[in-house]
């Protein structure tokens, strides 16, 4: 046999606790997303530009056209939660792209052959993306005062939590597409086609109450509708909305307003279901 092998027989590392091992792998995947995020400061700055432009150029421009009761800053306040979601959208979706990219570049294989569950890898990845996205959204959130939203600690905590949830919802949407996609370009095409209607039909830019019935019907099955609505309720609890403005009408199911907590629960449920579906597709062996 080998004449050279004189070293002691290698002993495989002792099997650590299952949960501890999964936790550590998940944290590592999450941390890798953070490292990538922090090392790409230019990308970070550029992707912040779009939502800020949206809010302070388009928002201000459009707000002049609203001639309803109340001040022109109402539209800015209305638009604000939507812009938070938009700020989180690009980084959230880029997680999906990075899954496809990892597959193309080969790094994914290093993770796939590791002794961890694929769902752990996927959850770590999604939470990493959601954290990055929430950080980006957080920058926009910090500028809330410019739109006339008062700085209240409780409201900000609420908004931040809802922002994390909205980010997660968009991240898992990207992930569920990504695990079935082999090429980065295909992924971007699919996601562009998917996200435009999701954004337009969420009551993000114009209120659901102003939509024709057929359009409003679509918003009911859009998870972003509930994410935006929950955030808007949080803002309204600290902002005096003018009476009778259709801008701030809550999402309704057959005439009944959906309570904000239910909206949050719906988004959370959506995340759980989609992550489970993505994990299943991701875990399939040939």
């Amino acid at each position, binding site marked *: *046999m*080998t004449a*050279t*092998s*004189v*070293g*002691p*027989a*290698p*002993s*495989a*590392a*002792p*099997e*650590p606790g299952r949960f*501890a*091992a999964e936790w*550590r*792998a998940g*944290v*590592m995947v999450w941390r*890798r997303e953070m*490292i*990538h995020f922090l*090392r790409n400061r230019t990308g970070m700055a550029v992707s912040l530009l779009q939502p800020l432009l949206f809010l302070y150029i388009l928002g201000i421009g459009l707000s002049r056209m609203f001639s309803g009761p109340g001040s022109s800053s109402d539209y800015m306040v209305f638009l604000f939660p939507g812009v938070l979601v938009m700020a989180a959208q690009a980084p959230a979706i880029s997680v999906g792209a990075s899954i496809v990219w990892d*597959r193309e*570049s*080969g*790094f*994914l*294989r*290093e*993770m*796939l*052959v*590791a*002794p*961890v569950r694929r769902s752990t890898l996927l959850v770590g990845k999604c939470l990493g993306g959601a954290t990055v996205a929430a950080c980006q959204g957080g920058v926009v959130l910090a500028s809330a005062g410019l739109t006339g939203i008062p700085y209240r600690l409780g409201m900000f905590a609420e908004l931040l939590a809802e922002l994390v949830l909205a980010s997660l919802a968009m991240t898992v949407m990207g992930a569920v597409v990504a695990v079935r996609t082999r090429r980065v370009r295909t992924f971007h095409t699919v996601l562009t086609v998917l996200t435009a209607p999701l954004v337009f039909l969420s009551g993000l830019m114009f209120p659901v109450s102003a939509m024709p019935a057929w359009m409003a019907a679509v918003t009911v099955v859009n998870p972003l509708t509930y994410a935006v609505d929950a955030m808007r309720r949080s803002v309204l609890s600290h902002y005096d909305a003018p009476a009778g403005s259709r801008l701030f009408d809550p999402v309704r199911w057959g005439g009944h307003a959906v309570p904000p907590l239910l909206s949050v629960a719906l988004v959370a449920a959506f995340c759980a279901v989609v992550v489970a579906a993505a994990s299943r597709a991701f875990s399939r*062996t*040939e």
Partner: protein
Amino acid sequence: MFGAGQRAARRPAAAGAAPAAHADPPAVRMRGVVKSYGGREAVRGIDLTVAQGETFAFLGPNGAGKTTTIRMLCTLAAPSAGSIEIAGHDTRTAPRQVRRSLGLVFQETTLDPELTAEENLRFHADLYALPAAGLGGRIDAMLGLVGLRERRNSLVRTFSGGMQRRLEIARGLMHRPRLLFLDEPTIGLDPQTRAQVWTHLAEIRRREGTTVFLTTHYLDEAEQCDRIAIIDEGRIVAEGSPDALKAVIGSDRVQLRTDDDEAAAALLRARFGLEPAVADDGITVRVADGARLVPAVCAGLDVAVYEVVVSRPSLDDVFLHFTGRDIRDDRTGAGGLS
């Protein structure tokens, strides 16, 4: 003839494979492994055993089932029939243990170019849940083993192809696997870097006692292995040590240049009972043991001998014999393992 050759090749291999007679399970044991994709059989029944500590080369033309076999060995694909055990763990029932026993170096890089060398190793340590105690030392030792200690804090993006490959080998060894898989570890590297990678592999075998299982298109690399299996059309067509495989081809080739080739050829026929072929550039004879013939020929021929060249059968001859193809034709289009 074919069957006989195969048996001849297997006998010495089996003797060589016998481990130091203890209960350690073999590094790899495949029994009747079949893999089909939608009715097409990529692997048609492979039986293979690799002993602990061996260095084993897996050769085959493109499309022979090599990649599929490796995908099954590292749990990325499940066999349609048969069973695979890695260090005693079944790939289907105990994939976690299998993965823990395996170190993998793929043909294409699987490093994260945006992380440093050390971060890549730490990421690996977290994925394999290596104990935090002694981790720094292990990282240092592995980087030292492949000569990258000074570059530990450099981004992998700045590494050359050879450095990346070496870092991947270091990473594959981080968790002290029983078995290190290398898929074309030196493809795309310049000869000097190839030699360097092999020096490191030899060092790894010496220091870590790891079983090494590799695929290669370079027969000079296969030559350095304890045992070789040649796969073609989804089956193993030959298996054994390089010498045993070459023995299947049988004869050495002895080429002579003499003062009078015709006379020398006549003498070879008459005194040694050989069948020499005479051409413009000299005489060629095929004999079982060329080296033994040389002194006898020099002493026993009455003609002046200017030059004697003995060539042993090469692995190229072996490969050609078993697959009907020249391995060099394949080299350019070596398939990936994605």
